[in-house]
């Protein structure tokens, strides 16, 4: 049954991708891309990657769709016909594709437990991590502890990307007069948003602190919390949202998260362990691991939240300024 669902979902994904390639209306392209993200999240669930599915649903269908729509409002929604010849690109793509398909025939068959990918470090993660780290969710153990260095780098990349966007577009100014914006005239939206925004934030906190035991963690929680404020900004207008969560605060939070993460590493340094070796953080190694993971997941959550929201602020303020002019 799972194979059949897999077959069907991947087929739908391929059709959606074709739609994206051939449509000229960019609004439709962005919406299809949102569907594409949802479908891939479903595929990830079906392939047992629940944490990944969680992230993809929040990021792909939520944040990136909003960012792309913001860009479209500034650049126009129609793709113009081009004088491009399509024959050469098609030839290149078909040749590359054929070579890759030929290459897949040498790959180990899908789902076979004997595949090389399952023989190396994965065995240790699956067999030893519940005792060594003391967490049922192996993905969190690997993400935060075994490969903590990696995750520190990725958090820093998210931080750097936020800095990049802010230096390209700039944050909204706080002191400008509040202008009529958002969807305030829509009563239903306003009421529904007021009810669900607190629930979304509560859910984000649950995902943040329950990520050790179930699917979730700092990355997902940060994105979900940012989505709550983005919804608020969309419904009640950007000026009000920037009063609730101030852009200056976000800048400080984005840096604070990375510092908290790296600081945990430095703390384990001074307590006699290696960088990001949480065993020394408490008297008992397993308790130390747990403490370290909670701290660094919190750092990740704060940075991702602040980075995503400030990126949204940057795009939204540009789009809003254009609409006023």
């Amino acid at each position, binding site marked *: 049954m799972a194979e059949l669902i897999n*077959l069907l979902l991947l087929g739908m994904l391929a059709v959606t991708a074709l739609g994206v390639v051939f449509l000229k209306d960019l609004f439709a392209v962005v919406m299809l891309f949102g569907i594409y993200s949802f479908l891939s999240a479903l595929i990830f669930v079906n392939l047992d990657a629940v944490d990944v599915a969680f992230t993809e649903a929040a990021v792909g269908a939520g944040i990136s769709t909003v960012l792309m729509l913001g860009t479209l409002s500034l*650049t126009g929604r129609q793709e113009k016909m081009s004088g491009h010849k399509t024959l050469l690109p098609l030839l290149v793509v*078909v040749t590359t594709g054929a070579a890759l398909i030929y290459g897949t025939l040498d790959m180990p068959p899908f789902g076979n437990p004997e595949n090389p990918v399952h023989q190396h470090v994965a065995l240790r993660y699956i067999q030893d991590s519940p005792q060594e780290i003391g967490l049922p969710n192996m993905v969190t153990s690997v993400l935060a502890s075994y490969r903590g260095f990696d995750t520190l780098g990725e958090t820093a990349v998210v931080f750097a990307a936020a800095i990049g966007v802010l230096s390209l577009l700039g944050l909204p100014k706080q002191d400008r007069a509040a202008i009529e914006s958002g969807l305030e005239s829509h009563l239903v939206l306003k009421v529904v948003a007021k009810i669900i925004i607190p629930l979304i934030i509560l859910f984000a906190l649950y995902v943040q602190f329950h990520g050790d035991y179930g699917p979730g963690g700092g990355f997902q929680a940060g994105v979900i919390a940012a989505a709550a404020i983005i919804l608020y900004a969309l419904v009640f207008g950007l000026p009000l949202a920037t009063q609730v969560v101030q852009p200056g605060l976000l800048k400080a939070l984005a840096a604070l998260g990375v510092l908290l993460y790296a600081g945990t590493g430095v703390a384990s340094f001074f307590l006699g362990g290696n960088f990001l070796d949480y065993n020394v953080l408490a008297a008992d190694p397993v308790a130390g691991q747990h403490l370290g993971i909670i701290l660094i997941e919190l750092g990740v959550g704060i940075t991702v939240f602040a980075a995503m929201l400030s990126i949204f602020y940057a795009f939204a303020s540009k789009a809003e300024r254009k609409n006023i002019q």
Partner: protein
Amino acid sequence: MSVIVDYYNYWVVVFLMMAGFYTVIAANNLVKKIVGLNIFQTSVFILYISMGKVSGGSAPIVAEGITTYSNPLPHVLILTAIVVGVATTAVGLALVVRIKRAYGTVEENEFKDKDDLI
């Protein structure tokens, strides 16, 4: 039949990858190129997650009565890659916005004679 079940995921991945690749090189509009890059990226995600799947396995969260788990390592790599991916996409889109402001267009074939504007 078994050949299809064994390699179906990888073939769809290749198809998606090529659809994204085609959009990147053939599309005229910069926003659409970024969507193409994102499709390319997602196809790589699916490739990794497909390789991590074990038939009959379960999600890698310890639970009673379950002995086979899928490989958690690809999940970790891709989870972080998704969030980094949206952050870098945002940088790309911000560049598109700036290009629109500097050149007045985001259509590739309209740039040609505007190179010396800035």
